[in-house]
């Protein structure tokens, strides 16, 4: 850079003044277009994230003047049994939610990827839960899963199965939340898979058919590899989503019964906004952010070696 600058000066080429270079540049229009978005993202995302990181080194209740306490919040976090169980709940939830929702969506997408009567209706029906408010579905499921008055227990009774406590049983509540959230998010995954299925070149399918491949081996060796990029996207996206579980817990169980559904973000919320430990809450947020970053990088690294990208 410097050498080049000296060179141009040496040959006596005059560079135009800065303002002329800026105004005349093709990039100006581009920058003008992105600036509003950049400002919004900076104000509502980057600066708060930076602030949260700063907060995590403070004793801060958001009311009294804060003071810096170094890594004390993080040290307390390492020894906090309630945080540890929140991590366990979140990991169990993620380990169930991600494979069940993606596997279920794959099956449904294959079933919906055909030309039959009313297919638009089925596709719409699958997607409706995604666009329905989480609070509304949460309250509906509270009624459906009510041990005495819920319709689910009514059906169990009708077919002679024992009555369940569902959200009121500490051993069942987390799995109920897995079920509800899978139902809620399945449609999103289905749409992604449907788009990917329709992007599979027809000639590859015909070639497989001509080679005498069975339907299963066509699916296994042609369709599935070509869905790789969509699967990778869904795994990364669903994992991030699952690790941030909050709304359903907040609406349906408040982390209970007996703390059995307290996930990391719900615990963070309790600390920051019920217990007035904003610094401690921020430390949890930072740890969660780093965990998500690491998990995502690992997934992408594995994905790069395993996923087939058609050129």
């Amino acid at each position, binding site marked *: 850079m410097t050498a080049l600058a000296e060179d141009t000066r040496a040959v006596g080429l005059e560079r135009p003044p800065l303002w002329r270079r800026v105004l005349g540049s093709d990039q100006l229009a581009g920058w003008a277009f992105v600036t509003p978005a950049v400002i919004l993202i900076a*104000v*509502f*995302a980057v*600066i*708060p*994230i930076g*602030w*949260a990181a700063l907060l995590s080194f403070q004793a801060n*209740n*958001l*009311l*009294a*003047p804060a003071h810096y306490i170094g890594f004390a919040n993080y040290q307390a976090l390492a020894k906090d049994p309630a945080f540890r169980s929140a991590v366990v709940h979140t990991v169990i939830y993620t380990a169930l939610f991600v494979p069940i929702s993606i596997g279920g969506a794959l099956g449904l997408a294959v079933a919906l990827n055909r030309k039959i009567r009313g297919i638009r209706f089925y596709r719409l029906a699958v997607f409706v839960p995604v666009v329905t408010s989480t609070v509304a579905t949460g*309250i509906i499921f*509270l*009624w459906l899963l*009510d041990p*005495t*008055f819920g319709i689910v227990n009514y059906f169990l009774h009708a077919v002679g199965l024992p009555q369940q406590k569902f*959200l*009121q*049983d*500490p051993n069942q509540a987390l799995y109920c939340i897995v079920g509800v959230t899978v139902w809620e998010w399945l449609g999103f995954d289905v749409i992604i898979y449907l788009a990917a299925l329709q992007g599979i070149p027809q000639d590859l399918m015909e070639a497989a058919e001509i080679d005498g491949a069975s339907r299963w081996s066509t699916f296994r060796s042609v369709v599935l590899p070509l869905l790789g990029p969509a699967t990778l996207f869904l795994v990364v996206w669903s994992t991030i989503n699952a690790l*941030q579980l*909050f*709304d359903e817990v907040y609406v*349906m*169980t*408040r*982390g*209970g*019964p*007996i*703390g059995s559904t307290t996930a990391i*973000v719900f615990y*963070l*919320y*309790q600390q*920051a*906004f*019920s*217990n*007035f430990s904003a610094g401690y*809450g*921020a430390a*949890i*947020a930072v740890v*969660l*952010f780093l965990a998500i970053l690491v998990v995502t990088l690992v997934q992408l690294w594995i994905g790069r070696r395993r996923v087939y990208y058609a050129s």
Partner: protein
Amino acid sequence: MKRYFVVVIAAVLALSACGGGSSSSGSGSGKHVNIVLWHGFTSPGAELDAIKAMTAEFNRTHPTITVTPQFAGNSDYALQKVLAAIAGGNPPDIAYLYGSWSANIATTPALAPLNSFIAHDSSFNWNDFWPVERGVATVKGQIVGVPALVDNLALVYNKQLFAQAGLAPPTANWTWTDFANAAQKLTNPAKKQFGWAYVNDGSEDTVWRFWAMLWEAGGSILESGSKQAAFNSPAGVNALTFLQNLARKQSIYLDTGSGNYLGLFNSGHIGMLWTGPWDLAQIASGHVSFGVQILPADLNHQTIAGPDNWVAFNNGSARSHAAYEFLKWFTSPAVNLEWCLRTGDLPIRAATTKLPGFKQYLAKYPGDRVWVQNLNNALQARPVLATYPKISQVIGQAVQSVLLLKSSPQQALSSADQQVNSILAAPS
């Protein structure tokens, strides 16, 4: 991390960037002062209409002050918004805040100096407010706000279900044994009918009902001085045993915190509730013929009250004075009576109940009579401590584990005792 945290911090930033808002047009005496009041009264509602009409009345009779009421969203989240406004350096002059937040609010330097206003003004008559209100509004001697609302728990029952079960209605002399017997007789699994309902979400809603039972059994929450837990006592075991016995007999409908119990009471599936005047409007709008009685006694008939406050913030001396002027007027007996008549809320001070017009209130809201009398049974306040929310979470889980039959009363109390003592011992 994503939603709430970032949104609140973004709001702090946005507010601090904007600044401005309302301001006094001058700080000298005799100048006109504008102040802002944040409330959570939703539309349509009697409270919203009342606050609009009554601030207008104040503004008309006090030409140097203009109070502007502003809806600040659901009161459950009022503190988060006030926090953001304080951080932005522009808090409202007056805000409706829950009493359970007092100890934390007291840590902010942004409060208006209510103590000195009240101390220099004998006509304010601070001691006329109910003791439990003063207890919740005062943190280590500092008055953080003026009482805004008081309520308490009483027994609401379905008269028809009582008659069907051949039971006499509850009396003011009822004991826990009477209550438990009635609850069992009102329980009928075949008809999906329960004797009682208990909010079992582990929140403060779960906890405060237990405190009422603890006090009725003669127990205390903390030792005096608030250094040590006191609920792990024979009284505590009595209270939780009472609860667990009814739970074991399937006599309690466990509400997950969504308030389903109200609809079930109104459809005749629940015989008795322990609830407050806030549920009265919905119960009265149903088809159930209901009665209200004070809580049954173990050793006594104590209840628990949950007072909320109008907290005044310091935006300079002129605005603080104006805020105090308004609160003094607004909580004066005659004005409070007008508020009660408009909204059906309970009177916040004794003097209101001695006004001749108070008969009109009892005639208009006959269901409120017992809750007004029951204020005399609200003898104790919950500990006003910054760590109270943490204590509440521990107790919430203990009560849940007893209701769900996952641990015995003694096990639950011993484990909670240990946790609460370590919360109290931690440096704040």
